[in-house]
């Protein structure tokens, strides 16, 4: 028991510990805390105006050794050895190259072994670690929370702020525990967990919170699965999602290029072991989900909270109590060209997209390939498989996954954000319907007039085989 003169420290959550350990200046009288940023990831879309700001003010990048850039949003996923066709995309990529050269920033360009989606590259290099703060001018930075890091997306002004000062002024977040207990059934994945969570708390249910995913079903996930879960925290409105580090985390990290070595590794693990939420720590909100009864999940609308089990039907807006939600549902059905009551499994698709920072890691590709192996894609359905990084592509090819994908009739592409967002040549045509392993089903997200159903890699694969929204179980018999 503690001595009478030493107060027992109050139990803290994982998020509170990471916050406290990065406090440079504690804010007073309503001003924000100043937090130190351990890792800053940069890409071509949200950085040009930030570099301009530095130039105008005559400021250098404070910590080039905590900063790394890659090209992902604008990059084409085929013919990558040729000049980028779209002049505005090309200028944006060239601007990043010029800026990186001028300021001395590490950059992995298209064609480089380490190029890829920024949220795939950080973890794969071993730069993303437990207990650190990570920012990037991209809302899916929440991905890195899978390691027990506090990671969140920032705007371009904040990118400039971090480049100049390696800190950010931030107001404390509230904390929300999302406990997922039980065992996932066969065919149910991390993607289904997070889609079900968002459907339960709503696309703005996490606003103002850092989410902590806990429970036996979360502990059982691989790092890839945990990254999928944390990646979509922002789709519940939360800036960050976190999972306490454990042996799974350490096993993933150990031996990676930038992971600590020797004594540093031992010191790091000793610190990381102190990070999990203390017993008795209080969250501002708590949510529970039963993994045992979870089905494959799929969205029907135009925000990620508008989802149902794949075995359900398109909901009837008339049955939605909240007036704003009802109006949004009516609008969504109109945009999606869906009729209430239609079984989700009867909805035909024109395209299947397997990729994005949510589901483009090696394990995702393995899952997809395991379902399509020996099948041929449904006639008339366009299927695109896009690895998250050049390294993932090489790894997949070493395992022969590309052969399975190409024999299936799908397109095997180079790494990038691809059809997750309408910025590069990979886009849906107006009216086209897509089963997508990405993270956003907003109007026009995958191309103007395109219609998106968010799904897991397993559902994407089964859908590519049958041509209608399907799970692997539908392939039997």
């Amino acid at each position, binding site marked *: 028991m503690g001595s009478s003169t030493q107060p027992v420290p109050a139990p803290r959550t994982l998020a509170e510990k990471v916050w406290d350990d990065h406090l440079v200046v504690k804010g007073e009288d309503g001003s924000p805390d100043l937090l*130190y940023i351990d890792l800053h990831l940069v890409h071509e879309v949200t950085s*040009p105006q930030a570099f*301009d700001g530095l130039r105008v003010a005559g400021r250098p990048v404070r910590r080039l050794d905590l*900063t790394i850039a890659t090209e992902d949003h604008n990059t084409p996923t085929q013919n990558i050895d040729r000049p980028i066709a779209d002049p505005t995309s090309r200028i944006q990529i060239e601007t990043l190259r010029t800026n990186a050269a001028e300021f001395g920033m*590490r950059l992995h360009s298209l064609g480089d072994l380490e190029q890829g989606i920024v949220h795939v590259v950080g973890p794969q290099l071993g730069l993303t670690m437990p207990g650190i703060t990570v920012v990037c001018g991209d809302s899916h930075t929440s991905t890195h929370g899978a390691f027990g890091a506090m990671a969140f997306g920032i705007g371009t002004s*904040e990118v400039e702020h971090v480049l100049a000062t390696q800190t950010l002024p931030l*107001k404390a977040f509230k904390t929300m525990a999302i406990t997922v207990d039980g065992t996932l059934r066969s065919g149910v994945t991390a993607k289904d967990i997070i889609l079900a969570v968002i459907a339960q708390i709503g696309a703005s249910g996490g606003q103002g919170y850092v989410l902590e995913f806990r429970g036996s079903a979360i502990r059982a996930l691989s790092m890839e699965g945990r990254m999928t879960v944390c990646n979509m925290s922002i789709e519940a409105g939360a800036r960050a999602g976190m999972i306490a580090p454990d042996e799974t985390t350490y096993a993933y990290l150990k031996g990676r290029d930038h992971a600590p070595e020797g004594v540093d590794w031992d010191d790091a693990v000793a610190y990381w072991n102190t990070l999990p939420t203390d017993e008795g720590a209080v969250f501002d909100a708590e949510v529970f989900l039963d993994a045992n009864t979870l089905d494959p999940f799929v969205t029907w609308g135009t925000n990620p909270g508008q989802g149902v089990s794949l075995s359900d039907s398109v909901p009837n807006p008339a049955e939605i109590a909240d007036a*704003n939600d009802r*109006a949004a549902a009516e609008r969504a059905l109109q945009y999606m060209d869906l009729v209430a009551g239609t079984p989700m499994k009867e909805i035909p698709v024109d395209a299947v997209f397997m990729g994005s920072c949510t589901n483009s890691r090696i394990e995702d590709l393995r899952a997809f390939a395991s379902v399509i192996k020996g099948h041929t894609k449904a006639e008339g359905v366009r299927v695109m498989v896009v690895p998250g990084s050049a390294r993932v592509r090489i790894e997949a090819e070493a395992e022969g996954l590309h052969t399975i994908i190409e024999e299936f009739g799908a397109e095997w592409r180079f790494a990038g954000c691809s059809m997750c967002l309408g910025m590069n040549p990979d886009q849906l045509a107006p009216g086209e319907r897509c089963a997508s392993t990405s993270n*956003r089903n907003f109007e026009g997200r995958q191309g103007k007039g395109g219609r998106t159903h968010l799904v897991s890699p397993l559902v994407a694969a089964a859908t590519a085989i049958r041509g209608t929204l399907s799970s692997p179980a539908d392939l039997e018999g």
Partner: protein
Amino acid sequence: MEKFTTVTGVGVPLRRSAVDTDQIIPAVFLKRVTKTGFEDALFANWRQDPTFVLNDDAYAGARVLVAGPNFGTGSSREHAVWALRDYGFDAVLSPKFGDIFRGNSGKQGLVTGQISEADCELLWSAMESQPGIELTVDLIERHAVLGDLVVPFDIDDYVRWRLLEGLDDIALTLRNEQAITDFEASRASWLPKTLPVRHA
């Protein structure tokens, strides 16, 4: 950044909830490398519909947008704020904002005032009954005024102070230069470094 106290101008009722930043500015417009020239990109897809509210001449020169809950959710793109500013908006009122969007707005002199859903409906009705009517957003008093209607709004105290003073965040932070340097001296050696490049 210029100091913000009050703004008076035409108000636009945007009767939609969950307006994500992909709607405010579609990704295809994010390729520019400047901070200006985004006015045509604002709500670009919706503006192709002739019945969309911004296509109504009565709302020409609008400066205040009144939108349904969950305005600015989704992508972190600050281009959404630049597009609203370039179009001429100085303030957005909504019952709820996306966190990143609200943060970005404060850095670019765009006031984001949080109002009640009931007041949102009152403002919408008033603007729709007299299209093109002006309203005043008063950051000092934290309220919006439309004729006899006075609607209070919430905004973070610190953001409000910075907007009123027109202060630059980076300059404010650099006042803590010594504290940052001291913090850096205490950081553990195992923390990640991107340079020098390492290969396991």
